[in-house]
């Protein structure tokens, strides 16, 4: 016999405890997963592209042409941030401060993004270890500035703001885990009830036989009824 929405609803109400148990299980699983998720720590330094030699050292005013070149430098040389040369130099700088971080690891940690239509570059270092991201961000910034100077022959990129703090972030928040767990548990409970109905061959309710055409149904209650 087919299952209608109404008959399924009635059966689900009768077996609501299955849904509740599954929801509690889903909630517990979500909570456990949220506790097990490790945080990611990020530290960010801000770099600016401007010919400091001209503006600061010689006191000249930056022209529109200088600004255009600065933007072009940022656009063209952003990817150098994750180059091996920059990472190797940063690794050397870090080892002087007592940090043993390989260039490969630094390259895996680094990411760069530029502010649109500007000469500003953000250099971020991310890791699950909160102790290394801040010195690594500053070391990578210094190394990048040095490498650009070597390439361009001038101080075209300089550090505007050093990395000063570490921000912790979680991929999925605890409340999201709990909501996903609760919803999954509910859906799992509904699926269990659905399959229980599909596999159950016995007459459990009047609705199970109500759809037989041209047949009246009479009920005889059991003797304990009062």
């Amino acid at each position, binding site marked *: 016999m087919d299952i209608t929405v109404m008959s399924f609803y009635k059966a689900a109400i009768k077996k609501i405890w299955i849904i509740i148990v599954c929801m509690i299980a889903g909630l517990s699983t979500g909570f456990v997963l949220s506790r097990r998720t490790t945080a990611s720590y990020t530290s960010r330094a801000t770099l600016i592209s401007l010919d400091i030699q001209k503006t600061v050292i010689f006191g000249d005013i930056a022209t529109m042409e200088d600004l255009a070149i600065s933007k072009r430098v940022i656009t063209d040389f952003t990817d150098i941030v994750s180059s091996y040369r920059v990472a190797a130099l940063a690794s050397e700088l870090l080892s002087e401060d007592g940090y043993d971080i390989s260039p490969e690891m630094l390259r895996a940690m680094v990411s760069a993004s530029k502010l649109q239509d500007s000469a500003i570059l953000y250099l971020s270092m991310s890791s699950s270890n909160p102790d290394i991201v801040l010195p690594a961000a500053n070391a990578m910034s210094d190394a990048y500035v040095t490498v650009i100077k070597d390439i361009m022959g001038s101080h075209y990129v300089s550090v505007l703001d050093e990395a000063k703090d570490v921000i912790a972030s979680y991929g999925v928040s605890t409340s999201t885990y709990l909501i996903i767990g609760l919803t999954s548990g509910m859906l799992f409970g509904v699926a269990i009830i659905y399959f229980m109905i599909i596999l159950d061959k016995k007459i459990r309710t009047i609705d199970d036989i109500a759809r037989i055409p041209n047949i009246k149904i*009479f009920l005889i209650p059991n003797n304990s009824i009062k």
Partner: protein
Amino acid sequence: MQNPSLELYQNRNQIIQDAYDILIANLYLNSNGNPPKTICIIGCEPNVGKTTVSINLAIALALSNWKVVFIDCDTRKKADKKRLAVESSSGISDYLAEEAEYEDILTETNHSNLTVIPYGNKWNKNPIGLLYSQRFNDLSAKLSKDYDFIVFDTPPWDSNADASVIASKCDRTFVIAEINKTCKADLQKTLSQLKTINANVIGVILNKVNKSEYKNYLGSYNYFKEKKRRKNIIKSKK
């Protein structure tokens, strides 16, 4: 020699009595003033309460002042396993085997309008032959003259063909299924097979229904209870 009297249990539960009254009312519905004489009670499988329902229906009909005869036609159940085990009494099997006469097989009960015909002592290997015999038809004819209703209790549908023979000879048939026990497929199979033999099926009796299901079915289940409660409240205020 007439059989001794038989004490039958009468259900005192008003809700159950009402349920049987609904069955009786439906016997009359769509009968166009010509109510059925012979009623067959068929169970989809053994132990669904077929005999209990049959006896209670017969008692309910008798209490409504109709002359009723209940016939135990469960040809396959051994005498010692029967609910209506009337010791050393002749029954339908003896009559059909021509070893007893009509008057000998009638057993009076504690209900004035209810007579019982037990299965009897004759264990026959070919009950189908007896059910198709002219003597069975003669018995039905005689009972139809003497009684308002004849209620047949039959063997389980899935055990043999006896029930189908009796159903085909009866005016109305009830099919009994037990909630939480009978399979949906078995019930559908029974109904479709009854259709093929042109049995006049009134409906399905769902037996041993729990209170919540029964309340859902009968919207005004609490009608009398509410009335009683209101009376008590009024009394207490006075």
